[in-house]
């Protein structure tokens, strides 16, 4: 957080290169927004007339689940952790609702799924916070545990069958007046809570403090393990919410549904300027990062490139953006 203080004290003119660097470091959203704008241009060139309000709303709808999962990564990365169990938790939550909604009703189904996710987060948090297991290993292991249990549940539920609840389908894939995705109804409050929580509330500041210097945080009276337990519960619940939206968007309920989003969610948070080493970043950049990734992959698809080339370009872009970002912010 030293950045904010610097900008107050130095106030170098923005027009110099150094000033631009300071600006970019303090307001990482600006270069990201520029990049987003640059990406819209080739989308328009690839298929003239494609960029419209309708296109934008389809992009947003596709980006929302990724942005929520990237939120899990942002919050955990701020403390120097990572959450690789989001894929398993999100899939599990979507699958639980799909199997329970027939017999128990939507409210009970969602409540059960959220409770299961919170329980997962609690165990992860205790492992990371109390027993000091490395977050990478802890969430990797919990991902395996959740996946295995979800598979067991799937075998139990073979006769019952499953189907994505129509309400979730509406929430995940329909659009108000044919333009505003319903998922925003759920997502906007999530964004407000995360943004305000990180900036204005003590809990959010504690996440930065622990990530920046865990020893200093402990010496100044932070009970690190409580913060971490709460953090991993929050992360798991967010993942579950993303799972509802993904199952609604794709109209599929499977125990591996969200697995392919795990690595992109880490990438979105990194592109958005959150440091994987902890203590630096925020959720605003992550949202733009998720949009950038979604638009990039849609652009690569619309160019008619084969899957192989798409993956190569996708990976190269992530390296390039992360490198540019580090270069700009490191020695300003």
């Amino acid at each position: 957080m030293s950045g904010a203080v610097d900008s107050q004290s130095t106030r170098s003119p923005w027009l110099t290169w150094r000033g631009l660097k300071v600006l970019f470091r303090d307001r990482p959203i600006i270069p990201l927004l520029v990049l987003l704008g640059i990406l819209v241009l080739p989308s328009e060139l690839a298929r003239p007339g494609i960029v419209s309000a309708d296109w934008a709303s389809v992009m947003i709808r596709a980006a929302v689940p990724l942005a929520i999962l990237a939120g899990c990564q942002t919050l955990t990365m701020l403390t120097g952790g990572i959450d690789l169990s989001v894929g398993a938790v999100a899939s599990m939550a979507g699958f639980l609702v799909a199997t329970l909604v027939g017999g128990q009703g939507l409210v009970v189904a969602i409540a059960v799924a959220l409770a299961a996710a919170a329980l997962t987060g609690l165990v992860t948090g205790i492992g990371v916070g109390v027993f000091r297991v490395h977050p990478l290993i802890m969430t990797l292991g919990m991902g395996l545990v959740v996946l295995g249990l979800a598979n067991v549940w799937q075998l139990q539920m073979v006769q019952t069958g499953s189907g994505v609840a129509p309400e979730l389908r509406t929430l995940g894939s329909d659009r108000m007046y044919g333009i505003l995705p319903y998922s925003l109804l759920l997502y906007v409050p999530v964004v407000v809570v995360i943004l305000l929580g990180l900036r204005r509330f003590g809990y959010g500041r504690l996440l930065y403090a622990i990530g920046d210097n865990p020893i200093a945080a402990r010496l100044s009276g932070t009970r690190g393990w409580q913060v971490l337990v709460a953090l991993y519960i929050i992360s798991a619940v967010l993942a579950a919410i993303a799972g509802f939206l993904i199952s609604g968007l794709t109209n599929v309920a499977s125990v591996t549904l969200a697995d392919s989003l795990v690595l992109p969610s880490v990438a979105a948070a990194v592109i958005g300027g959150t440091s994987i080493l902890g203590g630096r970043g925020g959720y605003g950049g992550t949202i733009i990062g998720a949009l950038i990734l979604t638009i990039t992959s849609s652009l690569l698809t619309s160019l008619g490139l084969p899957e192989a080339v798409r993956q190569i370009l996708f990976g190269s872009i992530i390296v390039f953006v992360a490198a540019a970002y580090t270069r700009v912010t490191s020695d300003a």
Partner: protein
Amino acid sequence: MSAATNAVDRSRARPVDALLAWGGRNAWAVGLLGFLVVLLAFTKTIQPSYGASAIQGLAISVLPLVLATVAQAIVVISGGIDLSIGSIMALTSVVAASQMKGQGEEFGVAVVLAVLLLGILIGAINGSLVVLTRVPDIVVTLAMSFVWAGCALLVLKSPGGGSSDWLKELIKGPLVSEWVPRAAVVLIIVVALVWIPLRRVRLGLSIYAIGSDRLAAFRSGVSVGRTKVIAYALMGLFAALGGISLTASTGIGTPVPGPYTLLSVAAVVLGGVSLAGGRGGVFGPIVAVVILQLIRTDMTFLSVDPNLAVVAQGLILIGVVMVGSLIQLRRSRT
């Protein structure tokens, strides 16, 4: 203090003392080895027919993950992590399979050597990107995992290709005694050829040094960037060996990365290598992979639901690491 004891042991240079000293330095690995013996005995009790041929099967089935784990261990010791190992294995495997198909045996040898060079090159690219961009290892290699997987798809769109016969024979069956699987011998020779000389020379020490404390290593005259690139190049070499072992054991190349990346991270940690870098070796992780595979086999013998076996795998991973960190916590207190 332990360093001093080691020095004394070495000066006496009696084999028993050397062995004891090695055991002292690798207490975790020795513990794992003991656990493996117990596990083997347990397997024999629940499945009396478990014998030489099962051991051979075990050796072949663990080979790709063991090589991936050695690759990961070297990078983790140097203070990094590589999340593209699975993709590199897929790429090297399809390159080997597509080039060897329908070619002569001698040409197969050339292909294997070329693929190993390719692996070194890929690893060096990963390492150079980490050093040049100054982006954290985990981010660079995560992004590169997409790139290498895409390259694998460019080489082969669907599983295919072929393998030279000598390569398939190389890891199949026993050597000398029926209790010595050929795959295990190949593995030991390959790892010993690279790793043991490496530990003896300056470069090996440098790899540990930059993992332990970059700044201290830099100030003692270690070229941090160059050492890091070399560590990644070694990773690429072992990942390529893993890819070739995939081609050898399946006879084809598959362009889709297997689960090797994350499993290798798990096995490295189980094997006593600290994710913070600078600590551990390759022996512990190798034993850890064999243990994990044997546990899975035992669960099949006990007819445990395979899904619960996945759960158990996760719990074992967490549990062992928890025990390890508790031991460390107590040690740091006393």
